[in-house]
């Protein structure tokens, strides 16, 4: 079993776990924060539910970025198709570190985007036509998750297995 799996696979999987887990945690907290604020708006003005939903969904992308990085690891290590490749310890560490930019950036960005979205709920509660501005403010925070994801994805693409 041991020679079949190689030494580094566990590390690669730990990286995938961190990316999916932390990214998901960031989004879960962020969407939660935005959702709580949004429920208040939707109670008073049910007709704004569509707008509330869009604003609530914004901090959800970090979870997706984390999931994608985890998915790439599973794909490139061959775990997904049931034929794991042999991965050395060094390669394992490389994959592990490759996951970190996305994991850390998504955790922090998800939470903070949730806060900005929640504040944006106040804007649309007062005036529905301010929706675009609320979205742009919230999307500013997402930039850093996008950059983290970009570096993680490029690293995974270019690490030679």
């Amino acid at each position, binding site marked *: 079993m041991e020679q079949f799996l190689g030494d580094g696979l566990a590390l690669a999987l730990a990286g995938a776990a961190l990316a999916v887990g932390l990214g998901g945690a960031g989004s879960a907290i962020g969407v939660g924060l935005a959702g709580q604020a949004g429920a208040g708006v939707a109670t008073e003005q049910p007709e704004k539910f569509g707008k509330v939903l869009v604003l609530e*969904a914004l901090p959800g992308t970090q979870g997706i970025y984390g999931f*994608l990085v985890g998915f*790439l690891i599973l794909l490139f290590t061959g775990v997904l198709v049931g034929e794991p490749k042999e991965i050395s310890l060094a390669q394992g560490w490389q994959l592990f570190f490759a996951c970190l930019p996305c994991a850390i950036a998504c955790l922090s960005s998800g939470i903070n985007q949730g806060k900005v979205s929640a504040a944006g709920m106040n804007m649309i509660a007062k005036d529905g036509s301010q929706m*675009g*501005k609320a979205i742009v403010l919230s999307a500013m925070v997402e930039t850093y998750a*996008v950059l983290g994801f*970009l570096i993680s994805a490029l690293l995974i693409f270019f690490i030679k297995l």
Partner: protein
Amino acid sequence: MAIAKTRKIQLLTTLEHKTEVLELLQNTNAMELQAISTEEGVETQHSPNQLQKLQEIELEFANIDYSIKVLSRYVKAKGLLAEPICLNTDQVKEKAEESKHKEITKEILKHENNLLQARNEKAAFQAELDTYQVWKNLGVNLENLDGSANSKIILGSLKKENYNEIYQAVNNVSALTSIEKINQDDNNAYILIVFSKELETELREITSRYKFTETELPREKGLLKAYNQKLQKQIETCEETIEKAEKELKSLSKHLDELMIVHDYLNWEKEKLEEDKKLTKTNYSCIIQGWIPEKNIEKIEDQLSKITNRYLLREIEPEKGENIPVVIKNNKFIEPFEAVTEIYGLPKSTEIDPTPFLAVYFIVFFGMCLTDAAYGIIMFVCTALALKFLKLPQGLRKLVKLLMYGGLVTFVIGGLFGGWFSLSPDQVPDFLTTTTDSGEQIFIFQKINSLTDPLTVLILSLGLGFFQILMGTYMKLIHAIKTGNKIDAILDVGPWAFMLTGIGFAILAAASVLPQNMIAIGKWWVILGAVIIVLTQGRDKKNIVGKLVSGFLSLYDLIGYLSDVLSYSRLLALGLATAIIGLAVNIIAVLMKDMIPYVGWIFMIIVFVGGHVFNILINTLGSFIHSGRLQFVEFFGKFLEGGGTGLKPFSKKCKYIFIKNNS
């Protein structure tokens, strides 16, 4: 194109034509009215007569608004394809005036009041009943619960585990006490204690020791059971009232369309009265002042002359520093992109309208974030159908049309990048693929593969970004030369435009796009640019040292330009995200087929369709936002301040009906 010219005009007319003229202005949707400011400030008083009329209309309007809300509960929501109310303004007026809306709203308010009152009463009775229900076995008449001259009775509840102890304790006090359990539920025992009055202190001590909570029963005659039955009966009466009121409201809901028409009509009348106070009046004449887009002036004069010849229209100069309302006007093709500009807010009246300049970038960036030809086709078809078959409000129409363009561009860019539902070339029918010279199988039209060759896409993204920022800088330069102090404009912005162009030239030379011998030229160009920046940017400082130091410091702005360009790397990241989510959906769909015997293909189709729909939705939203952000932050930042106020023309605003042309 760009910002339409807005003029300030005054329109003098006789008081007898005032109503007609206001009606005309409201119909033509042409100008924004403004109160004339005098030395004593702005005079905006209604005459008592008008004030009363306004209050009346406001009350009627509020009643109708409320009635519509009430009736909407009883009418099934209209489907998307249902025909909305379409009338011309004359028909609206006619229908609204013959409508007996006052009687109808009165009726609705009456029934709604009955309904609410009955509901409240029912809830109160129900709460009472719930409290007394546990005492229903009480065999004592309620009037006897007050006790007699020497004895007293208390009722209450405590935790059922404590019942035995309190039973012992009470019986131990004296022979003149008695305790009885009336009822018991999951948690509590409900008990009755009878005792001689002189023992009250001891008894109270015991009851507080066992956390006994005393209950008051209603001071009525007869058994509690009978009282409960009375409550039950009252609840039933309330239910009947509720049912009756709901039935009435349901039958009244046939007037909903009529009320909606009156709602919008009254809104127009209300606004007309509100605008009226902005007019300056004498005994026989009135002056209407306001802002009007230049092209509307002729139209207004043309229609005015049909009403009367007793009017005078003249243009006046805006006051110094006055905020001129902004109208942006673009041709039919560019118009949908105004939706993007409006999210940021309008430019100031002295600035350029960015809409035509951002259009191409916005739509290309949008396509690059999606990069899936199949998604592009789906989006194009859906939005085109929506435009054809749905009656959409003006603002939404712009947005949907923009998404339709987006679908088309996504199809083209997706084709170039080889994105077809994120499938690989060996998974699709042969006619969609072709073989390259090196023997690799790729999609037809495919030029780049973003999954195996992300660096090319990254360079493309940054290149487009650099070009857009360069364009923004030149736009600022040109606009500043046209409108402001020419020397300052050239010295402030010019060096940066020169420097950035040089950097672009040097990069192209270094990347061997330009001939080899251009590298040296590029190098000297950049150095010359840097020297010019150092020499010009600190020129407002007093002494020569200050000038040079702040000149050198301004070179630091280069970092800002660099980070702006790097921000465009998100185009690659979002494109990758779409492709990889699609890939994940495909792999999971195939896993479904392999894992589940016999019916696996059904689950495969469900996962495939559901997954890709999700991917389209989430990434269309993401692409739109991030493509927009690149315009607002990176592009606008170079040449636009924003913060203009839009022209809010005096018009007939509709919430429920669509206005057809009178013809």
